[in-house]
């Protein structure tokens, strides 16, 4: 019983990071109704940026946080101009295809350059013991960092001028344009933020688990599930839903083989979509 409890608590810790990853997806989705299928590739890029920084500079893993965030923002702006700008407002098919194509290019380059072997980053953080169980320090630090970044995003969207502009564009792009908000720039910034969040969450996941070039798919799927649970375009909902997914994963892991976890999560995804079409914590229109 205590084992299950420990597994659940650990799941919740990891869930914060899932929530952070999904926030990146849901932000772009909410603002411009585009699903960023490069999400997985960006998460993996974050993981390999971590690997590069730790191995090349020999510094602590958490130093990578700021550079990954800045680089992610830049990559996101580039992604917007390459693949998304022409697709905003078109049929969903087109933006799905264009981001899917970029994802293929990135995954293809990654596989060609790095192969599909397993990589690992060692993080030495003392864990916290509770009886016979020890919670890895890396999990605790990652959860705290994810929560802090999520709170930072919440403040950014709520308090700053750019954040308010992002919310205005999400709410009604034409009206935002009419009151003088440079919507194109705001859309680009939103994609930048979304990708930065994906990169940072990838970096944090890289401190928790080993990874390969192809890990992205599994985390993309998790992000979809979290987004659906949390309500589309609702970053705070995504964080809670991420924690909920982590909790579920923690509760299920002791009983079923790992390879089934994704199937269970996916089944949950379809059921939630059919029963609650707007997501479990569906926001009011434009509640971003």
């Amino acid at each position, binding site marked *: 019983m205590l084992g299950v409890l420990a597994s659940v608590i650990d799941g919740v810790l990891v869930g914060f990071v899932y929530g952070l990853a999904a926030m990146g997806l849901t932000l772009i989705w909410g603002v411009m109704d585009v*699903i960023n299928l490069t999400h997985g590739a960006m998460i993996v890029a974050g993981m390999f940026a971590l690997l590069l920084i730790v191995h090349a500079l020999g510094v602590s893993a958490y130093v990578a946080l700021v550079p990954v965030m800045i680089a992610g923002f830049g990559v996101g702006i580039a992604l917007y101009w390459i693949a998304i700008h022409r697709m905003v407002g078109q049929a969903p098919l087109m933006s799905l295809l264009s981001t899917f194509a970029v994802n293929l*290019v990135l995954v*293809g380059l990654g596989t060609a350059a790095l192969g599909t072997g397993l990589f690992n980053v060692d993080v030495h953080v003392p864990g916290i013991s509770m009886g016979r169980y020890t919670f890895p320090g890396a999990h605790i630090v990652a959860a705290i960092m994810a929560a802090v970044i999520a709170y930072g995003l919440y403040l950014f969207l709520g308090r700053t001028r750019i954040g308010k502009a992002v919310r205005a564009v999400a709410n009604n792009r034409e009206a935002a344009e009419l009151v003088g908000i440079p919507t194109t720039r705001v859309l680009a910034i939103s994609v930048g933020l979304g990708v930065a969040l994906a990169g940072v969450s990838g970096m944090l996941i890289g401190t928790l688990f080993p990874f390969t070039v192809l890990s992205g798919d599994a985390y993309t*799927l998790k992000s979809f599930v979290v987004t659906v649970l949390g309500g589309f375009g609702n970053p705070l909902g995504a964080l809670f839903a991420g924690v909920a997914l982590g909790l579920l994963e923690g509760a299920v892991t002791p009983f079923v083989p790992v390879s*089934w976890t994704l*199937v269970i999560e996916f*089944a949950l*995804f379809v059921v939630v979509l059919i029963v609650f079409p707007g997501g479990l914590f569906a926001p009011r229109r434009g509640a971003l």
Partner: protein
Amino acid sequence: MLLLRLARRPFFWVIALIVAVFAIAPLIGDNVDLRESLVLDALYIILASNLNIMLGYTGYINFGSIVFFGLGGYICLWLVSGLGLPLAVSLPIAGTCVSGLALVFGLGILRLRGHFFALATIGIIEGVQAFVQNFKPWGGSAGLYLSGGVLKQIGGPANALWVIYFLMIAVMGLSLYLSYAVKSSKFGLGLLAIGQNEDAAAVLGVPTPLYKALAYCTSAFLPAIAGGLFFFKSAFIEPASAFDLTLSTEVIVVVMLGGQGTVFGVALGALLYSELRGYLLTTATFSNFQLVISGALLLLIVLFFPGGLMGWIYSRFPRIQKVLE
């Protein structure tokens, strides 16, 4: 009835010509190399034509079309090796099973619209793959093998390759006629209406969830049979090759390259892509970058030529729409 009506249109005979060329070309001089390259072309045409029913007509992107192909292969090989059924019986059973499964899935996930359907199809690949990897009767991640003896039922190893080739061409012809027949039927018009504006289609009386599920189920049958043939030919199936991510993305590239929603364009796209791929794979520098090139090609098409090759041809020669549909 529909078939008779179609036979009066020139495009009906264009398809017949394509099939005839495929069937006769390798026979001239017993050209085995040509046969092996044409069988791959035919496979691309089958998968792309059937994906086109969803992607081109209905405007619903199915990232998991490869699931039909892989499951068909698994069911067929399992029937042949596990239960000892002949190939002629196993193929239709595999097709029917996969189609039925697609109908059940479809009725569930096709209530989802637009984005959500696309996401659900990504989940289906993961789900089916995890299932197959854990399913003991299908050999788990090790896969299924056929013993050499099963080839006797279609005339020994040398003959078998020809039999499989002609079966594959037959399935290709059926795929082309199927997508043409669907496009010309009332059902197809309903699908095209869904593709243009789903709400308007529903208001005008198109039973959208049912039509979408039927389209999904229709587009599953022939790829499943092609999967059965393909893996019967290689006598071996494993999860990684059955649910090959590269193939499933290539098929999307093929549909977009040829022109989504056109029958001829998709076949043309399949031929062109397959030639390009054959060239790239034999060039050492490029063989590692196959995914990169497919992706870059897809991005260019989506950004600059959303109509694909046929879209370009139609805009240059509008009258050709009457002959090549």
